[in-house]
């Protein structure tokens, strides 16, 4: 049955089962709201590329997810945001990194895709490009939330990221709370089989200034072609090495796996346990949201009436 489908995520990670209500409920509400927005847009015939962008914009604006407002902080207490977007039909794509004042990074990524002969712009130049195109910018303080100031303090105290760079990264302590939350994303397909994917993030808490993760790397955090659209989240270095988003599509193309099989395979086999989750839709209107972490903030809906909003595994 071919109909539209949409899936979105607010990050996969070590989300504790006993997440307090005051942290859980606003996020669930936001997921529901974003799902509704996306579904309305698809029902009104908006192209999946527009739908993916508008849903991610909404997630960026929400302060409880690690993208746009609410982004985690670098080791210097600043915000450096990145995003990418891809149109499955044409495989055109756009990506940005190192943003500090752009309110909606995903929209800037789209502008790079549509208004430049390039795919990826970063840091000062990306900011200058934003201004040159009249894109909405604000003071960096807009993006910083008290929760994230606290997360950074906690991360520095537990020394989660070794700063002397001479030894391998230590294993993350078990009690890291929800400080691993990373990335938001949305994938959508319409009844004609047009696919799109968009992903946005503040990155990794206490990250080095200038550090780029998987989100703006086409094939890692984001990918879409004529078969499927994927947005990934989790430990960014693993997603890059595992070329996660591309691999889901590659397994469908080259091994003939179904969307669900391909996505499950990647999450089970291509990345370590506890490192990754993704949302994906296929040209046939199927949807899948596998993850190998404790939880993943996610939501999806299909034209035949199915919908789901969840955080932890369903069983």
């Amino acid at each position, binding site marked *: 049955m071919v109909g539209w489908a949409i899936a979105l995520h607010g990050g996969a990670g070590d989300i504790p089962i006993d997440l307090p209500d005051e942290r859980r409920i606003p996020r669930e509400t936001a997921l529901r709201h974003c799902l509704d927005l996306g579904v309305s847009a698809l029902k009104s015939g908006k192209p999946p590329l527009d739908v993916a962008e508008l849903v991610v914009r909404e997630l960026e604006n929400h302060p409880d997810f690690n993208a746009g407002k609410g982004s985690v902080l670098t080791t210097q207490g600043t915000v450096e945001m990145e995003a990418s977007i891809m149109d499955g039909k044409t495989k055109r794509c756009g990506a940005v990194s190192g943003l500090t004042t752009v309110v909606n990074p995903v929209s800037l990524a789209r502008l790079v895709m549509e208004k430049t002969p390039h795919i990826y712009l970063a840091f000062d130049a990306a900011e200058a*490009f934003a201004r040159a195109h009249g894109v909405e910018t604000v003071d960096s303080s807009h993006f910083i939330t008290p929760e994230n100031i606290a997360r950074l303090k906690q991360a520095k105290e537990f020394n989660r990221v070794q700063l002397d760079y001479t030894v391998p990264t230590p294993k993350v302590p078990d009690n890291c709370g929800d400080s691993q939350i990373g990335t938001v994303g949305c994938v959508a397909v319409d009844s004609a089989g047009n696919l799109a994917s968009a992903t946005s993030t503040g990155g990794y808490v206490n990250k080095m200034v*200038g550090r780029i993760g998987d989100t703006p790397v086409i094939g890692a955090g984001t990918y879409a072609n004529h078969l499927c659209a994927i947005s990934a989240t989790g430990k960014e270095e693993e997603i890059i090495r595992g070329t996660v988003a591309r691999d889901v599509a590659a397994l469908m193309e080259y091994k003939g796996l179904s969307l669900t099989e391909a996505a499950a395979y990647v999450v089970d086999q291509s990345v370590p346990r506890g490192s990754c989750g993704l949302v994906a839709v296929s040209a046939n209107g199927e949807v899948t949201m596998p993850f190998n972490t404790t939880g993943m903030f996610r939501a999806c809906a299909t034209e035949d009436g199915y919908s789901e909003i969840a955080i932890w595994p369903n069983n």
Partner: protein
Amino acid sequence: MGGWAIAVHGGAGIDPNLPAERQEEAKQLLTRCLNLGIVALRSNISAIDVVELVIRELETDPLFNSGRGSALTEKGTVEMEASIMDGTKRRCGAVSGITTVKNPISLARLVMDKSPHSYLAFSGAEDFARKQGVEIVDNEYFVTDDNVGMLKLAKEANSILFDYRIPPMGCAGAAATDSPIQMNGLPISIYAPETVGCVVVDGEGRCAAGTSTGGLMNKMMGRIGDSPLIGAGTYASDFCGVSCTGEGEAIIRATLARDVSAVMEYKGLNLQEAVDYVIKHRLDEGFAGLIAVSNKGEVVCGFNSNGMFRGCATEDGFMEVAIWE
């Protein structure tokens, strides 16, 4: 079958009217780099170390578009990027927006080995470089007179030049004999991207790959291409090592380097079949080339562009340096 193998490239998409002396210079550089790699492989140096040392040589020589001799940004400065990947465990490192680090590929290696991240860029990468004590130079070190001339031409033509290795005074003549071939919408006479790369499989069957570039002539500051993107310009796995060059946007969309390995892994193709497949089916209307080695000691070059500066060698004595088909 088996044994070490190495390939190097200096870019895909070459003006058919490139003067003979430039072609000769390129072949000599490729031969020299190949020999460096061969000597290292014979002394049992690991694939990842060989990739790094060969690319350092390509970056240091001003002939190709990487390190010294990089194409210039619209502001006349140099912004370099590079990535490196070790097939064993698929560890990787990448850098972008490098302006003072003499050998970007070595910085990419340090990101892989000495930082908790995979990819660092701009001022953050430069800070990391200083903390690691790598060799730092002024940005002017990377700028050559040739490229200053090219930038001027590019601005006059108001277009992006991938690179253009014909001396400035020769370009009027070259324009008169313009080939109808195009790359990225530009006549081939004003296009020649000379991203450099190296892929190696060592005697233990370990594969590694690396790519380094200054990017597009007259590019926007802050523009990132395919060379530092794992899966696009560079990829290595247990099966193979791949480095790509050509139209960056086409390579990114095609996740070209990753796809060579993916068709080997998921379709069971051998290296030659895999390279042929991706070049034929993955580039759509784009033009690019790549070099690849397999864990079985094979080496393959493939391109759909007009030529690719390349060289390859295997342990059984095979060696070839070429530009055209």
